[in-house]
């Protein structure tokens, strides 16, 4: 159970925090241990997703498979700010969130391949995995549905007064769904402890934000509900963690919901079957070279002398081992027993 932090009751007349520009001063350092952990967690997601892409190409993973490559700093940074008892819920680009929550890579990969050892016994697939134990509530395939569901998780936290905060992740595409605003309204009305994290990776499938939204500054989307919002550099895990710390305190103290718009980027297509012809190679390459979250982290750790090249090699080997074992398990684990067709429909 989360230890409830004591936070001073905010005066109702206190001004709401303003939206911070991206260059709002220096980003606080994470410190050696946290920066190394963040690097390792981001690397695990990156290598896991690369492997998933390979298995998809080999025909071992079917259907839809949405990779998180490029966006790793968002979920890893927020995870560093969370407390035990907080919940995470997201959409269909969910593998990174599960790994960040501490779910077993074997179980995640085996679900991708539709095997009995998968988190949902092979019956959910890429978009539908859950772990009550790790506070991960899915994994939802209907764009925007997780926003209302996450608001309900926050409602339960407030009902139980357990001090928990729900982190509800969604993309710039989902930000245009009606139920998102229905949820904003109720969350603000009832001061529910929920952080709405908009992972703005610039494209809703093939439609860029500028082609889809009349107000492209998504952090302002809570304005008419009096929900404060901030723009965060979602490629810098330190900036994400700093914002997460502030905002989780805010929500935990009973002041209501908060919106964080994470500026981020996905390197791969929307799903494995997306050739991504709506953007140029140069655009992708520019982000990779200038803003890659893992390379930023590596350079920083080296510069601080917190690890050397040998240490990075050891970390990479350790992560590759975990991912290879997951892929091995997911390849040879049997498919679910045919009798599973009729289980888990009702309790």
């Amino acid at each position, binding site marked *: 159970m989360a230890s409830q932090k004591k936070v001073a009751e905010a005066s109702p007349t206190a001004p709401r925090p303003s939206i911070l520009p991206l260059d709002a001063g220096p980003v606080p350092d994470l410190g050696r241990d946290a920066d190394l952990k963040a690097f390792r967690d981001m690397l695990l997601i990156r290598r896991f997703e690369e492997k998933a892409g390979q298995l998809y190409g080999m025909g071992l993973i079917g259907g839809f498979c949405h990779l998180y490559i490029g966006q790793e700093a968002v979920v890893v940074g927020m995870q560093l700010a969370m407390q035990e008892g907080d*919940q995470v*819920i997201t959409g269909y680009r969910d593998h990174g969130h599960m790994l960040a929550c501490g779910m077993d890579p074997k179980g995640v990969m085996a679900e991708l391949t539709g095997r009995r050892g*998968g*988190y*949902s*016994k*092979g*019956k*959910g697939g890429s978009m*539908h*995995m*859950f*772990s*009550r134990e790790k506070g991960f*509530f*899915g*994994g*939802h*395939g*209907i764009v925007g*549905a997780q*926003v*209302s*569901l*996450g*608001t*309900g*998780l*926050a*409602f*339960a*936290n407030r*009902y*139980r007064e357990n001090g928990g905060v729900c982190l509800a992740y969604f993309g710039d595409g989902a930000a245009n769904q*009606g*139920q998102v*605003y*229905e*949820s904003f*309204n*109720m969350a603000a*009305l009832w001061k529910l402890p929920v952080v709405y994290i908009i992972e703005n990776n610039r494209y809703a499938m093939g439609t860029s934000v500028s082609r889809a939204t009349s107000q492209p500054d998504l952090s302002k989307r809570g304005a008419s509900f009096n929900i404060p919002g901030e723009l965060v550099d979602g490629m810098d895990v330190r900036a994400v963690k700093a914002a997460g710390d502030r905002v989780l305190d805010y929500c935990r103290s009973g002041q209501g919901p908060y919106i964080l718009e994470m500026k981020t980027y996905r390197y791969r297509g929307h799903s494995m079957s997306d050739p991504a012809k709506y953007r140029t190679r140069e655009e992708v390459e520019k982000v990779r070279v200038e803003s890659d979250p893992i390379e930023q982290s590596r350079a920083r750790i080296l510069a601080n002398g917190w690890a050397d090249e040998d240490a990075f090699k050891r970390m990479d080997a350790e992560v590759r081992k975990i991912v290879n074992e997951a892929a091995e398990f997911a390849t040879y684990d049997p498919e679910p027993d045919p009798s599973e067709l009729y*289980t*888990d*429909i*009702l*309790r």
Partner: protein
Amino acid sequence: MATQILMPALSPTMEKGNLSRWVKNEGDKVKAGDVIAEIETDKATMEVEAIDEGTLGKILVPAGTADVAVNTPIAVIVADGEDAAAAAPNQAASPAQQNKASQSAPPAAPGDAASAVATPKAAPSAVANPPQPAATPVPELAEASAADVEMVTMTVREALRDAMAEEMRRDGDVFVMGEEVAEYQGAYKVTQGLLQEFGARRVVDTPITEHGFAGLGVGAALAGLKPIVEFMTFNFAMQAIDQIINSAAKTLYMSGGQMGCPIVFRGPNGPAARVAAQHSQDYSAWYSHIPGLKVVAPYTAADAKGLLKSAIRDPNPVIFLENEILYGQSFPVPKVDDYLVPIGKARIARPGKDVTLVAWSMGMTYALKAAEALAADGIEAEVIDLRTLRPMDTETIVASVKKTGRCVVVEECWPQSGVAAEIATRIMENAFDWLDAPVARISGRDVPMPYAANLEKLALPSVDEVVQAARAVAYR
């Protein structure tokens, strides 16, 4: 000229109400729009306005009178210089005069405008022969057949409220949310008194935001709470059906059994009276189609109570289909602690050997009346109240059909892909060799619900159709 003020109807289904108080006294000058009296039903309170200028000549029904029939003259307004005694209260009101009373009640159901308008009862009843509570045969209650069980008479509305209140007392994780459930006391007064007993934490008024609050409820259920989500009517649940099906019904399966969703979605379903196509539809078939849901549609107050309690305790998402027209109907309910009716069990409402009539919810009113009419002609119909649509009690239906060899299904929903179509298929699959005639169905017509009273009546099943169908399959 003297004008009679008639007891107005708050909704097309209202038959009587209480005259709570007179705001004006005899001899008071009144002008059009003045509130002269207040009336109330078990559902709502409303004000009666004068529509003519004059003097309140005579009060015909004193304050505090209960059960005043709609259209009873309650007062006379006389023009200046006219004699109050000259106004003849016992003269039949002309049709023109029948419209001289109006009211300014807050809408009983926002989004349900028609129910706030007084409809002269001279108009044909929208629903074919709504049953009189007194005329309803006392149903056999399998769960309380013991003769020593004391029965109390209560309305379906009261039974539903009691079920929620009992379960909320029993389990702190149970809460109710929806539009107007708390301070307004329920758009149809089903949640009356719950706010007072349980407070705003557990009786939650929502904005008009079906998609959002259905999703919020499912999220709370995934976290382990047991929400009762009230839809003002199931027509509005179409806004929320993605969350009901994609999130509530499928998540247990998609999570390999990890994420249960203990939630009840309840509210009035099916054709209401004179509210036209968008507010008058039966969703029985829609929800009964979905694996991962349980779907309940009670008829009697006892079943409403016992099944709602079971639904709230059920670890699965339950769609609980009520009926606005049945809310005010009274039935005997066993006076026992913790009265539960199991989900998934049909009830033989009337035994018989010649033909099986299967119905549920409002459909039971047609089936029971048809059975009476058939009995008068020597045909003994067995009436099955299905009570639960999913999981469907095929066993009870098949056992009855094996006895009678004939079946008529009564439903208010549309025929194509309807519940009757499913029942007919199950009978064919399980009792084909016992059938002496094809299964017949009496369904709502395959049209959007019309507003005009005569067309609406034509669009709904009737007792006569059920009788004719039963005769046809019995070759009599």
